[in-house]
């Protein structure tokens, strides 16, 4: 149950923002991830810039986490 906001993640060798399988009820908003390079999808719907493999993590939909895989 963490709050993750206003962070910028660029050009990393794996996912920009990764919410792992043990993450739970985090809130993430206004984050920007661009140009990251996930070598493989970590969860359904994940992208090279973002992966949510946890449970009940929520966003208001105001992140910039593009590049669908």
């Amino acid at each position, binding site marked *: 149950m963490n*709050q993750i906001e*206003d962070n910028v*993640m*660029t050009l*990393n060798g794996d*996912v920009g923002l*990764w*919410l*792992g399988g043990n993450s739970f009820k*985090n809130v993430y908003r206004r984050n920007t991830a661009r140009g990251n390079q996930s070598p493989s999808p970590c969860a359904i719907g994940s992208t090279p810039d973002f992966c949510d493999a946890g449970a009940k993590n929520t966003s208001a939909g105001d992140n910039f986490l593009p590049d669908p895989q």
Partner: protein
Amino acid sequence: MKKLFALALLGAAAGTRLVADEGRIPISTPTTITKSGHYIVTRDLFINGPGSILAIGNNHVTIDLNGFSLQSLNGTDPVIRSLGGFGSLTIRNGTVEGGSAGILFPAGGTRVVIEGVLVTGADQDGIRLNGVNDFAIRRSIISIHHLDGIHVEAGNGYSEVVGTIENNLVEDCGGSGIEILDGSGVGVVGNRIRGTDQGIALVAPAGCLISDNTVVAARGDGIFIFDDLTRGGAHGGNRLSGNAVSGSGSVGIAIGGIETGGSSTGNFAAA
């Protein structure tokens, strides 16, 4: 003649008064400090054998490095160390080079301040605090260490540690730039980190603020927050805001994996 003698006396008195007024005790050789007080280093100090250059053995000690350098070629002892769980200790304003660690508090303590120090070239961690509460590490440069730049962890009881790490430059470390185990209410704010393994690693943190840090070219994850099965801790209630992570070898910001390796870095397995 009388006038000259009077002037000489005045000069001597003024010199004495300068030290007495400021209440500072000069250090010009490797020293074990056993009394409380405000100490000031008056020359560069060097050691090439066993032991630390400065060992702190009491509470309420302030050490002003006075812009001088403490250098140790001894890779088995830290350059500066606390000899026990002492409190109200301040180290500031100088260079600490070499040693097993630059600055080591191995067994507890409270109200420890490290500020304005260049810590470089340690065989292990640059700054390591074990079981120290109410600490502040700020405005320092921590560079070129074989393990972590700054390593903070709770004591043997896995209790929590509280403190702040702010406005430091941490670079070129074999381990994490900043690693904190069991932090509770720790602030990691405004640091610049480059060329480390993990940039900022927090294991089982609670109520911590990780804000406005810049992590560049970490070899592993830029910032990660993990649970720790070994230590029985879970993370929660932390706030990460305004951080910029770029060019890491692995994940930019990773939340919610599981640490299985205790205090080591990088030995995690994502669930």
